[in-house]
């Protein structure tokens, strides 16, 4: 029963949602509407669950003093600081428990939550993403080596696309006469992206879609049960 009930619910819900796509009339359409609303409500609770999980995992690492536990502590302090500033003085135009914090706003220019978001979180987040450029440069030097025909082809293509997608590529071959315009780097880069890459992307998308249909059917029919978790 413990396994049969979830399998039955999964099958019925899947059957109703699929049916409503083909029969957009009552009762399928109205049940589907209800299920969509349920999904949005459950998604909201999933965020709370995620936050609780984050707190639990980080707190345990700090408590057990695992390796680099100090970083987890910083994460927890940052989390609670943002929550506290949001609850006490609100965000944007919405007031918090202690009002709008006019005194602090006159000092910082904005509410504390916005101040931290604009001046700390935003820059840290952008920095993390920007660091990728340095690792890509280092990896390109070490790993992008011609070893075979395929790697040679890959490198030539990558260099053309990289140059073609920059402003410098435009200048490098901008002098070409109109009859040789097809050799203009941005044009070659566009050709590579629009045809060979696009064709490969379509193949990947169609394969992935077929895979999703297959695995969805396996879940609906109760063949695939790993989502129920282990044990009895």
């Amino acid at each position, binding site marked *: 029963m413990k396994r049969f009930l979830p399998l039955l619910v999964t099958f019925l819900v899947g059957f109703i949602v699929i049916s409503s796509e083909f029969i957009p009339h009552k009762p399928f359409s109205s049940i589907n*509407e209800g299920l*969509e*609303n349920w*999904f*949005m409500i459950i*998604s*909201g609770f*999933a*965020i709370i669950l995620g936050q609780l999980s984050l707190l639990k995992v980080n707190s345990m690492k700090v408590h057990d003093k695992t390796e680099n536990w100090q970083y987890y502590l910083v994460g927890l302090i940052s989390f609670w600081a943002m929550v506290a500033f949001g609850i006490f003085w609100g965000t*944007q*135009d*919405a007031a918090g428990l202690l009002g709008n914090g006019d005194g602090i706003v006159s000092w910082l220019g904005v509410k504390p939550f*916005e101040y931290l*978001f*604009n001046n700390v*979180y*935003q*820059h840290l*987040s*952008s920095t*993390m*993403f*920007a660091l990728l*450029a*340095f690792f*890509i*440069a*280092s990896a*390109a*030097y*070490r*790993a*992008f*080596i*011609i070893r075979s025909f395929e790697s040679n082809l890959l*490198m030539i293509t990558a*260099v053309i696309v*990289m*140059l073609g*997608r*920059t*402003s*410098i*590529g*435009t*200048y490098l071959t901008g002098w070409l006469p109109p009859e040789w315009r097809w050799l203009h780097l*941005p044009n070659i880069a*566009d050709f590579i*992206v*629009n045809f060979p*890459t*696009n064709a490969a*992307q*379509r193949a990947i*998308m169609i394969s992935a879609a077929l895979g999703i249909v297959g695995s969805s059917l396996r879940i609906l029919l109760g063949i695939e049960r790993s989502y129920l978790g282990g044990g009895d």
Partner: protein
Amino acid sequence: MSNSKPLDRRYIFLILLVGVTLPLIFPLGLKSEVSDLARQVYKLVEETPTNSTIIISFDYDPATNTELQPMAKALIEHAWKKDQRIIAIALWPQGVQMAEQAFADIMKKYPDKKYGIDYMNAGYKTGGMVTIQAMGRSFKEVFPSDFKGTPYEEIPMLKNVRNYNQISYVISLSAGDPGLKQYVMAAHDMYRVKVSGGTTAVSTPGFLPYINDQHQLYGLLGGLKGAAEYEALLGIRGTASNGMDAQSVAHVLIIVFIIMGNIRVYKQKKSKHEKK
């Protein structure tokens, strides 16, 4: 140091840092060639009538701010130039703040634009594709109030907006899931609303199959270059155009590093061969 010894990665980092920083301090003024994809997005906004209501979905967070925020600003500016009304929504939690920042920046150029009349921020909603589908039935059910808590009925520009039928086009600025792909599948494929968007450069190739005869996507802005192309079409030089100088130098440096790496390996192989 022998010729075959790899260059210390710290030198690579330092060279790249200098190469990226200098063009940001001293702009080179390089021009981007406008692609057909950017022209399609521009045409969609340009040909949409005045007073139309449109949706811009902010489906990203500060991590991809550099690539997607210039697109948001350029698109808002273009839409306001054409007197279109903008509904901002967010499928990512921090998209709400990104939208507010973009509006605040463009408001400096268009101080006459009023909140609730020319634009509004509906806020963040979980659910991804299901939320997009639900907006096709009733916008009010999904967003009963804006992000400040103002009820739907009290926002003048939403008076006649019930679902996608009253929306001229949707633009999703997307850094992943949920985002542009879900808008194509739900908003366009189910409700036939015109969809366009902008993505990070790394995910751009994945969206190209949607630009087809069925117009699943009306053009696409890909990464910083896409944003710079849109700025060029608008005749402005914003943060994307300046950023393209730095990106161009970074690309050239990476190509130089690739060549250096290959020369190193070639020399290594040659010396091994000679020893034998």
